[in-house]
């Protein structure tokens, strides 16, 4: 079955690569030197490498959330909203937190909780009412963006009331820098811990097993006494929580305050990160670092006017499609999810 699809899959890959090359040529840039420039700036300049490492932190946290959700075939594409919800809740409560390490932990926990709540709304809609989670999470994105826009111009705006942003949070609540002379903060440790915990839960625990069963076959899950609806809700809460945690980490680690658009396109990037990592939590940080290098390198080139920055979205889409086609070309027999069922 799939053997016959190898050539068509490779043709798709070839087409996509040619399309990207043609688009780069259209911009008057040279694809080879562009690729070289991205690698050079991201990997071989200190600024580029540090920028990539900084971005790896939230993308890892969010990529883990996507991996959990997609494993259960729950398609959470509202991480941008969940990230906002988490950072808003954390910043709202920040004045009440103690000015010590406990305060930092609580700040992050509040981010986790805020994201969980926002993801949980979609979870309730999915589990209780059977509503599609893709639409629900996307709609909640737009609501969250508007609410943030209101907060930083209204109740949460800085005392000076000039710029649409909140006052800075207490310095004691900031995540400390862990490498002197850089901006790399303790969020890196949070991300590493999250990878370990998620990997243990998904690969060792009962929960991971149930998740995999729901994701591969809903009927089998029901026979095994697992409620796919309840699983979907739990998964949306968890992945939302990781996005919210990422938001709190960004605020406490980098910006120190709430402002609009502080995590541009992270929700989209996290999906690409998780898919390229094949939903494997141990590969998520690697994939996140790869995409962060791409962002850092391409961002630098785009600022110099070499190519328009939306090329990054084209590349994200293309990379996902290349991976899909690649999995078809490389699979022997029962590769893809549903096809395995239909084949059997």
């Amino acid at each position: 079955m799939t053997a016959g699809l190898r050539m068509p899959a490779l043709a798709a890959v070839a087409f996509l690569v040619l399309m990207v090359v043609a688009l780069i040529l259209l911009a008057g840039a040279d694809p080879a030197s562009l690729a070289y420039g991205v690698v050079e700036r991201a990997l071989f300049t200190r600024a580029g490498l540090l920028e990539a490492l900084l971005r790896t932190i939230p993308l890892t946290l969010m990529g883990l959330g996507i991996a959990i959700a997609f494993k259960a075939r729950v398609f959470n594409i509202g991480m941008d909203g969940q990230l906002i919800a988490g950072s808003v809740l954390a910043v709202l409560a920040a004045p009440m937190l103690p000015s010590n390490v406990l305060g930092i932990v609580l700040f992050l926990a509040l981010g986790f909780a805020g994201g969980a709540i926002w993801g949980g709304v979609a979870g309730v809609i999915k589990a209780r009412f059977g509503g599609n989670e893709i639409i629900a999470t996307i709609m909640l994105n737009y609501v969250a963006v508007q609410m943030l826009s209101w907060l930083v111009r209204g109740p949460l705006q800085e005392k000076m009331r000039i710029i649409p942003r909140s006052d800075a949070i207490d310095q004691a609540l900031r995540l400390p820098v862990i490498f002197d002379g850089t901006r790399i903060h303790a969020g890196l440790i949070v991300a590493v811990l999250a990878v370990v915990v998620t990997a243990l839960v998904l690969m060792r625990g009962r929960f991971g097993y149930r998740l995999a069963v729901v994701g591969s076959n809903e009927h089998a899950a029901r026979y095994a006494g697992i409620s796919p609806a309840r699983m979907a809700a739990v998964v949306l809460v968890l992945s939302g929580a990781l996005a919210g945690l990422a938001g709190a980490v960004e605020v406490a680690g980098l910006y120190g305050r709430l402002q609009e658009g502080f995590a541009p396109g992270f929700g989209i990037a996290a999906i690409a990160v998780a898919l390229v990592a094949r939903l494997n939590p141990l590969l998520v940080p690697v994939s996140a670092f790869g995409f962060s290098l791409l962002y850092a390198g391409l961002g630098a080139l785009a600022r110099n006017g070499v190519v328009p920055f939306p090329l990054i979205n084209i590349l994200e889409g293309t990379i996902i499609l290349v991976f899909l086609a690649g999995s078809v070309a490389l699979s022997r027999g029962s590769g893809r999810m549903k096809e395995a069922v239909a084949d059997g």
Partner: protein
Amino acid sequence: MDEALFLSGLLAAGIRLAAPIALAAIGETLSERAGVINVGIEGIMLVGAFVAVLFAVQSGNPWIGLACAVLAGVAMGALHAYFVVRLKVEQIVTGIAVLFLGLGLSGYGYRLTLGEAGTAVKVPGFRELDILGLADIPLVGPILFGQHALVYIAVAAALLMAYLFRATRLGVIIKAVGETPVAADAVGIDVDRVRFLCVMVAGGFAGAGGAYLSTAHLWGFVENMTAGRGFLAIACVVFARWNPMLAVLVALVFGIADAAQIRLQSIFPAVPYQFFVIVPYVVAIVSLAVGSRSSRMPAALGIPFARPR
């Protein structure tokens, strides 16, 4: 009388705002009836919006812009179809990739072409029609006779598709492909070909919806200007239980919600405008909660076809 005028204006504006959602929803209905979901139509709409402006400016004729937008939509649909029908990979994930591609292609293309020149480019857009000179009739005129041509085209397309599903052999074939592909295959229907074509046509509709946004509703392209309308269109399809006429009516609900929030902003200037902007999205979220349970989707929706051995 004032209330009547207000309601008339609201309805006329609601129809204007519903049209792009309705166009995309009509196409998505066809695609999903044939068994393929495309969550990337938001991206296809963006490409349509950009292409329509680009070619309208180049040719000086919005109809040429529209035609190119439809073609671009068909091409994006073909890409989706190639992956999910030919290669039989995961439909949702492919749709997400199509969304990213559309987001990127429209933004990239715009910055390379019209965006370079800034906002000064004059876009030859569509004007509202004045059918038989009746658009000036108080109250009903603007609603019935003063809409954009694409609005009438959308309604006609929905009627046509309803007829297609209800009374034609082709409609039966499409429904069979989406409900019982194995049986359809057994009687000699090329399941994959029917699906491929339906997904391409759906892409064309999404492209037209995008063109409406950038050459009829507004005259110009703004990055990410669809603002979730592609996803609202998918919601329409579900709430309408895969019925094209109902999908248009649901789109009208979203359109009216949007028109109402714009008016409410000026009526209540003391309330932060963000609380009104979210109205259509909240309506969608609430209706997801209220309207999803009893719907039965096409049996083979989302499942690649494989001939049993």
